[in-house]
């Protein structure tokens, strides 16, 4: 396949060649804007032409797809090639029953009676692992959870037995435990049906688990391709190797600093004449600028790299070393107790529609006790809906506590405005929406100082320049508007803003999850550096366990509004005690194909309704080791099981098995073992 797609003024895809064999799982990896999705959309004929222009050739089983007539293309789409999109919420029509939506595809491609189509739809739902498939045909999309909707999407994509399945970031919107379920499902289906799969993603971890072959895209071009195992072991392009080194992992030794790729991803406007990566590359030199490198055989068989220096890249470790940074003037600080949360509850009343309007209360945060000391980082992890963001918002006064209290330096948190609010500041997830687009960067950063009347105008602009320098943004940026900066740069500006009022605690709500993978390490390092230099305490809220591990001193795991386990970082990652923590850790994909040890069975089911949590231990409905009569009746309390370790599970104490406490052996194996015991 080959396409050139200069869309509008942006060259989204610049001459890529890809071959996918029958029955092969092929992963296309790249950051946002690298052209990975556009190239696959053009395979499906879904790129609007005009304005886009697709040239080159896309051959599917010998059939030329570029310029193919609409009706013929329709027969291929959904018939021969199935596609699954990222957001299962918007890909399903909310007003039709899902049985009808599956049958619709069957009717489009086959002559089939309505009853047969429905029967087939039921079989398909069963095949994608939806319990009580026949009964759920009459349900509407909103009655399914995110993971289940994605299963329905897969069922639709598979309806006509396609020979190729294109999955565009199919698990990005899902939680790790659900992602694990979907990955396993696709693996099974692929093995059963023998179809080819093109998996588009930015997540190298998922790729390592599912792909046979991988192509890495950068700037609309494929920079490296090869067998997954080879690529991960010996990357022969600096970009691939940089990505592999810069993403934090849960399975390797934690280093103080993450190796980082400097700069930001490119967006191509002009013709490519030189390597698009050269400005960010440690090996970049004149020969990289002189010509556009093409894919050449490198490393192992079937491995190609578009780098003029590919021969000299042997081990990426030298290329992307984890440098010890010189921290200018690390601040001496005590370790006094800064924040203590006692029995915090945040409940939201919600009204449900429907025939009988019933009022429900979402227990977003339901009795949380946590502590944070000066200069430390508390990581809070959990699936979406576990209440971690609400907890963060309660700390900065965005939501009122229903019960319990938050003490900041011994004083109860006062959510009214005033100078006392300077102590706790916040960094938001999305750097694009957290800044007023009409304000200049200087004003954005100075805002906390103006709110609290700190300094004169001159002193403020002086401090803004200093803060911008501290986060690696040139001081002249102060007169520009936020939209002129990339996501990573904006997040730096957001950090500068959070620091402006000299806070003692910064709540970071998913500060890197909206950023490109190659930029995440920069921000994580910057936060770490900032902490060392200013002695600020961080509350780091994230769903990404690897990032949390990298930055936190202590980690709290939340489930349905409650903390289920809390421990120092190394303890929790090496010897997790709570079954939920174990399941979460086991679900994190590891960017290393060779580490795929016999995986524990994925956590079943989805997060229960937070307005109607299960009785007893809230996790018992999904827990592989739950004991009936104990876990579903008695609420486990968060209690100390070891120095600095808190766990809310009956079985941690009930179990006399020392491995539980000592935590020997592999976590994944452990969970499998537990599953057997429990079963």
């Amino acid at each position: 396949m080959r396409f050139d797609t200069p869309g509008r003024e942006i060259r989204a895809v610049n001459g890529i060649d890809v071959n996918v064999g029958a029955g092969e799982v092929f992963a296309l990896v790249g950051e946002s804007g690298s052209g990975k999705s556009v190239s696959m959309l053009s395979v499906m004929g879904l790129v609007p032409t005009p304005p886009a222009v697709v040239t080159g050739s896309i051959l599917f089983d010998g059939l030329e797809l570029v310029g193919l007539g609409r009706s013929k293309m329709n027969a291929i789409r959904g018939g021969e090639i199935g596609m699954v999109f990222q957001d299962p919420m918007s890909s399903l029509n909310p007003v039709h029953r899902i049985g009808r939506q599956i049958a619709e595809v069957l009717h489009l491609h086959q002559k089939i009676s309505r009853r047969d189509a429905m029967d087939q739809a039921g079989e398909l739902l069963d095949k994608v692992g939806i319990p009580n498939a026949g009964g759920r045909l009459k349900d509407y999309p909103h009655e399914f959870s995110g993971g289940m909707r994605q299963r329905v999407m897969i069922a639709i994509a598979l309806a006509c037995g396609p020979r190729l399945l294109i999955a565009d970031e199919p698990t990005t919107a899902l939680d790790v435990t659900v992602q694990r379920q979907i990955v396993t499902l696709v693996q099974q289906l692929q093995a059963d049906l023998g179809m080819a799969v093109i998996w588009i993603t930015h997540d190298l971890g998922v790729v390592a688990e599912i792909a046979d072959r991988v192509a890495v895209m950068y700037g609309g071009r494929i920079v490296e391709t090869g067998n997954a195992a080879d690529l991960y072991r010996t990357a022969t392009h600096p970009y691939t190797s940089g990505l592999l080194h810069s993403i934090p992992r849960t399975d390797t030794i934690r280093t103080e600093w993450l190796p980082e790729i400097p700069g930001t991803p490119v967006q191509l406007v002009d013709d490519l004449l030189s390597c698009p990566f050269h400005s960010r590359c440690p090996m970049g030199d004149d020969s990289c600028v002189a010509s556009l490198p093409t894919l050449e055989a490198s490393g192992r068989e079937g491995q190609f790299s578009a780098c003029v220096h590919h021969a000299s890249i042997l081990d990426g470790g030298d290329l992307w070393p984890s440098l010890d940074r010189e921290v200018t003037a690390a601040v001496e600080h005590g370790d006094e107790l800064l924040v203590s949360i006692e029995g915090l509850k945040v409940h939201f009343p919600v009204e449900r529609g429907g025939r009988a309007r019933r009022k429900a209360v979402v227990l977003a945060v339901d009795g949380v006790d946590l502590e944070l000391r000066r200069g430390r980082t508390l990581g809070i992890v959990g699936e979406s809906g576990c209440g971690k963001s609400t907890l963060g918002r309660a700390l900065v006064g965005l939501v009122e506590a229903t019960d319990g209290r938050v003490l900041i330096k011994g004083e109860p948190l006062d959510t009214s405005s005033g100078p006392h609010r300077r102590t706790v500041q916040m960094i938001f997830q999305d750097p694009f929406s957290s800044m007023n687009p009409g304000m200049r960067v200087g004003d954005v950063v100075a805002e906390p100082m103006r709110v609290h009347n700190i300094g004169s105008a001159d002193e403020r602009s002086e401090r803004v320049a200093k803060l911008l320098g501290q986060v690696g943004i040139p001081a002249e940026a102060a007169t520009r508007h936020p939209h002129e900066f990339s996501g990573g740069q904006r997040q730096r500006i957001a950090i500068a803003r959070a620091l402006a009022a000299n806070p003692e605690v910064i709540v970071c709500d998913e500060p890197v999850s909206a950023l490109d993978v190659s930029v995440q390490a920069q921000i994580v390092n910057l936060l770490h550096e900032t902490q060392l230099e200013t002695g600020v305490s961080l509350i780091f809220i994230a769903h990404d366990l690897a990032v949390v591990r990298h930055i936190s001193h202590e980690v709290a795991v939340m489930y349905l509004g409650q903390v289920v386990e809390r421990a120092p970082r190394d303890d929790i990652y090496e010897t997790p005690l709570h079954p939920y923590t174990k399941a979460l850790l086991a679900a994190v994909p590891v960017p290393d194909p060779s580490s795929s040890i016999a995986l524990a069975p994925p956590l079943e089911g989805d997060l229960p309704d937070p307005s109607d949590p299960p009785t007893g231990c809230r996790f018992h409905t999904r827990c592989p080791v739950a004991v009936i009569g104990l876990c579903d009746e008695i609420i486990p309390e968060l209690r100390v099981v070891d120095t600095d370790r808190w766990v809310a599970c009956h079985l941690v104490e009930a179990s006399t098995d020392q491995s539980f406490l000592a935590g020997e052996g592999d976590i994944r194996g452990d969970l499998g073992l537990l599953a057997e015991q429990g079963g």
Partner: protein
Amino acid sequence: MKLLNRKRTKKRSPKVANRLGMLGGGMVLFLVVMAIGAPWFAPYDPTERVGLPFQPPSAAHLLGTNDVGQDLLSELIYGARVSLTVGIVAALVALVLGTSVGVLAGYYPKRLGRFLMQGVDVILILPFLPLLIILAAYLGRSLLNTIVVIGVLIWAGPSRIIRSQVLSLRSREYVLASRTMGAPDRWAIMRHVLPRTALLATGTFVRAVSTAILLEAALSFLGLGDPLQKSWGSILFWAQSRGAFLTPAWKWWVLPPGIMIMVASLGFALVAFAMEERINPRL
């Protein structure tokens, strides 16, 4: 490998909107020049008796004279002053009221917002023209009263538009961010919410001008305008009461002020349309 480059294809609708907006802008400019330059353009003083009553158009009086012998063309030219003044000032009154209520109702959507919006709903439900007439009659005939009555009646629509914008703005992360800094609500409203609604407010303001001009003409036509001011509506009022609608005099006594009212109202409406297309392309 050949790369094709394409110029960005523009959408059609903004183009049409732009043209109409230019047209409306031209109309508005014409009226503004006419209002400001009235003493120079008008051949006579419109309050003076300069000829015989009921004269048809002639070289001396291009649009003839009215029932007391005043020059109709001069009346028409001076009428632009009243129409524009009432239109713009009444729209300003509506803008201030509508924006204040809209911002407060949008930023505090729970109790205050619900209360304010109920008030807005009541005003929107009331039969509009009868209320306008009763209020104008009750308050008495003066320019100020006309402005107040119109302003007070047309702010409800704009306030709804502003409120919906503020509702979405208040949950934007940069507004939340200012709250996490410890800023009072006043700060968030003045620095983040108001500046982001200004554009939308301008659009609704121009639209309100158009409405206000029409309403002023209606009130004056009913004889409820300021008796001392020459406005297009009052020219029509006198034409009606002297029976000009049924005589050939309608061509120079009724038609020209009618056209002027239309031009003024349409001009502002077109400008507003073009602005809204810009401000909110998904409209």
